[in-house]
């Protein structure tokens, strides 16, 4: 099971955090602090895995951004490494050549995408196409919602009240 997903920049700035196991706000900050210390200081070409407090953290660097996932001791590290890559490919496809800036300003969209990929700490969908289709459906609905914000849905809402 994936316990959390963490995106940290080379400078140690947090770009996205998603917690699948319960952590208090205090624990979260501690985890981030500790892990960014460990991971950012690792030289390239070393393992993409770090054993950490009985769990394993799999990380991968893309440009200046580190994608980290914390998994159980029994999980398959290589698989998780590919999950990360899978996520990045989906992000790339969604944003069109994704860069860190896209994630900084649209972090909530990254969350929506992650929610279609992982759920409750497990991979729920391994088809990029399916994820893309779902996100597109949501986006198009959002678009129409924007346009008709004052018209249709409100009318229906009022009518059903």
């Amino acid at each position, binding site marked *: 099971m994936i316990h959390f997903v963490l995106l940290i920049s080379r400078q140690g700035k*947090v770009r996205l955090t998603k917690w699948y196991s319960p952590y208090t706000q205090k624990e979260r900050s501690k985890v981030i602090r500790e892990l960014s210390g460990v991971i950012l200081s690792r030289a*390239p070409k070393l393992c993409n895995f770090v054993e950490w407090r009985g769990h394993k953290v799999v990380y991968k660097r893309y440009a200046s951004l580190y994608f980290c996932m914390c998994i159980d001791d029994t999980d398959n590290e290589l698989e998780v490494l590919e999950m990360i890559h899978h996520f*990045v490919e989906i992000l*790339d496809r969604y944003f069109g050549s994704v*860069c860190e800036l896209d994630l900084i300003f649209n972090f909530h969209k990254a969350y929506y995408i992650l929610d279609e990929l992982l759920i409750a700490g497990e991979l729920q969908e391994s088809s990029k196409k399916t994820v893309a289709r779902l996100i597109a459906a949501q986006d198009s609905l959002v678009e129409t919602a924007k346009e008709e914000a004052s018209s249709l849905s409100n009318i229906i809402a009022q009518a059903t009240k």
Partner: protein
Amino acid sequence: MGSQGGFGQSKEFLDLIKSIGEARSKAEEDRIVIREIETLKRRISEPDIPKRKMKEYIIRLLYVEMLGHDASFGYIHAVKMTHDDNLLSKRTGYLAVTLFLNDDHDLIILIVNTIQKDLKSDNYLVVCAALNAVCRLINEETIPAVLPLIVELLSHGKEAVRKKAVMALHSFYRKSPSSVSHLVSNFRKRLCDNDPGVMGATLCPLFDLINDDPNPYKDLVVSFVSILKQVAEHRLPKSYDYHQMPAPFVQIKLLKILALLGSGDKPSSEHMYTVIGDIIRKGDSSSNIGNAILYESIRTVSSIHSNAKLLEAAADVIAKFLKSDSHNLKYMGIDALGRLIKLSPLIAEQHQLAVIDCLEDPDDTLKRKTFELLYKMTKSSNVEVIVDRMIEYMISISDDHYKTYIASRCVELAEQFAPSNHWFIQTMNKVFEHAGDLVNIKVAHNLMRLIAEGFGEDDDAAYSQLRSSAVESYLRIIGEPKLPSVFLQVICWVLGEYGTADGKHSASYITGKLCDMAEAYSNDEIVKAYAITALTKIYAFEIAAGRKVDMLSECQSLVEELLASHSTDLQQRAYELQAVIGLDARAVEAILPHDASCEDIEVDKNLSFLNGYIQQSIESGAMPYISENERSGMVNTSNFRSHDQQESGQHGLRFEAYEVPKAPVPSKVTPVSLSSTTDLVPVPESLYARETQQISSVGLASDTGSSELKLRLDGVQKKWGKPTYSSPASSSNSTSQNPVNGVTKVDVATTINSKARDSYDSRKQQNEIDPEKQKLAASLFGGSTKTERRTSTSSKGPKASAADRPQDSKAASVPNKASGEKTNQVQQPPPQDLLDLGEPTVTAAPPAVDPFMQLEGLLDSSNSSAVSNSGGAVANAPDIMGLYRGTTSSEQSGGGGYNPASGDNLNLLSELSNAAAVRGTTGATIVSPLSPSVKGANAKDSLEKDAKVRQMGVTPTSQNPNLFRDLLG
């Protein structure tokens, strides 16, 4: 997609993100965020905020919380937003609550109603949003509120909904297995879902179910095998391919399930052999995902009923992993080796040098994994080398968590396989010295007991030798500064028991040392208590031996100090010391007999010696004792409870009130009630009894204090049910293994004639001439004879092959050559010359570095164009980008296959590996020229993106040009 590259937020929010991005220090960032929190607090509680605005506020809250600040004041607004009818707001609301709240938060109860409503919605996107929230927020108590709705959704028309419903049930199972136990048939049904996504999702809950109890699912083995077969044969839709690999994530999950089902079950395993064999055979070891599947297959092979053919195939894969240059693969190889070694202990032999390389690798992760492997293959012949290595590493790290772990491993191995008492004590000393505060106190008790009892031989001379060597080593160590408390306790105890035993050291010398210690660690009451008790013992032995006790002045002052101590325990001990000194030899010998620490103290649990007294009391009219069971009147429940108590004892946290202390206690204080009767139960009496017992327990506590030393030892003995470290057993073990090793060596390396294994000593001698590494390998794997013979049988072969290696032609310096050969050795016998070549590699650091340098050289040359062009990378990049663009646009228009070619990925990898270097050297030049060219999928797009970004005032600063760098090449 309208969202592409667009930043839909307000100027204000963008400014915030920008200013945080430019913050120079954490303090500055905190100031900005705190200001933002103030603003949000004010704004968010204003009346009539437009929905759009509110949505942004919530996202800003998310941002604040992501940066580690508290945004709890806004949680309620996020909850409110989930109630909104507008999907746009609802979705934001759900996202926010899932990120803000854990499933035990008070606000959850306010969301449950909304979730219920949304699960019934006609719009599948609403249902999906609600299901996302369900997985995160519904806790054990609220499961029943949504469970029926979710079960209904299992047959929803949209596969996305079915999939999420399955996952929701899975999360319920995790939180409360009983809540969904009646729904197992639904999972089975979903396994046959038309949509592969739903099928894949169903594997998650099934995996957990099977993990908990595989037996009810044995009938599914055939189905799983056939699904796996179909997946591996590319029968799933192309969209599930990942880097040309058919649905690898599904394959891995299936392999995991098969591993569980086939474990210890021969008939089930036999169904799997073919498909697993096929997967390994067809496995693609050139891609990462291919290796992930191969690794998972090895795990499955090692878990199911073993099959020689599969094991062989798995061993081949491991060899490939270990020979790879990638650290990741080496790591996986070591892990896999550790799994397979249980089944075929010989497989490690052929990889010994690779394992040593990993052990000496600068990468901590790899090193630790290798220690894990060594731990699994420790036997009495190699325990010394392995434990020495572990301790060496333990000393070098500062991570307490791992230090504790590896210390306990050392102790465990030392206890199990110690070749000699002396070595054991030395090893324990080292562990205590460097990780004393981290090891379990039990370990200290173990050590004391071992010194007291020896290894179980009946040789008195060996006993006393063991003890005096312990005493000697402690007297030596005692002077070192800052020893851990646990270690000091051991030292005190041993010196007290055996300090004067062999007559080498006088009582005054030992007592002086003890006093010094108590003084040096005057903050540590436990150490002081141990020290004073040790003093008592030494004086007692002196008196018993008929010698006159001359108390050193420092001892006297220590005793005086402790007599007035705030700690009652210390006081008690000091008074005892005084009392003992005042007694005559005979009495002292009875109180503290010499060398009786490990004699069993017989406890008369029936307290029969009190019978007369009780009889007397009953005759004079006292109430007879009623046992607790009878008092509560329910034998069964109390049995149950006592069982419960044992359990809680194990777990440490107890939720019930403490029970009244048992057996010996009542006898001491209320002996009247001791004899057992079967009379009826007078309730007030029982209450009374309980009360007195509680009081008595208080009294007892101080009692235990007084005789604590003895009691503790008693406890120590109990803790050690089985003496696991008895060396005769382990040595016999090893002898039984040795011949096996000898035989299989022949199997592994066919060139070797089967000779019996040399004796340990002669082997060692031979090793003297070997290079360090081979020596280490030999001592670890016990295979030195093999390498030795290899050397003699063929000397020329590997040399040629080493020369063939491309690396060598590139850089032909001597150490490189050696390292090249070193990697070859794994399979090929090392040449005689290695002895000479090997000399410089003694420290192993240079050869570990050199291959990297070579590799870098290779990489550089292949990618040099990319690097050198980086300023005007346009020349190279847009081509690929253009292609890429093509696929994306076709996708937009109607969903063509988005299949990032492996070439694409290669590019990415190379860029990544170069990234560091490029940034380091040409960082300044990249900054502005590169950003427009790299940003976006083609020139126009990138310009737009760049312009947009600049509009907002976010200009690439030299500090962080990478913001604009594509994550994927």
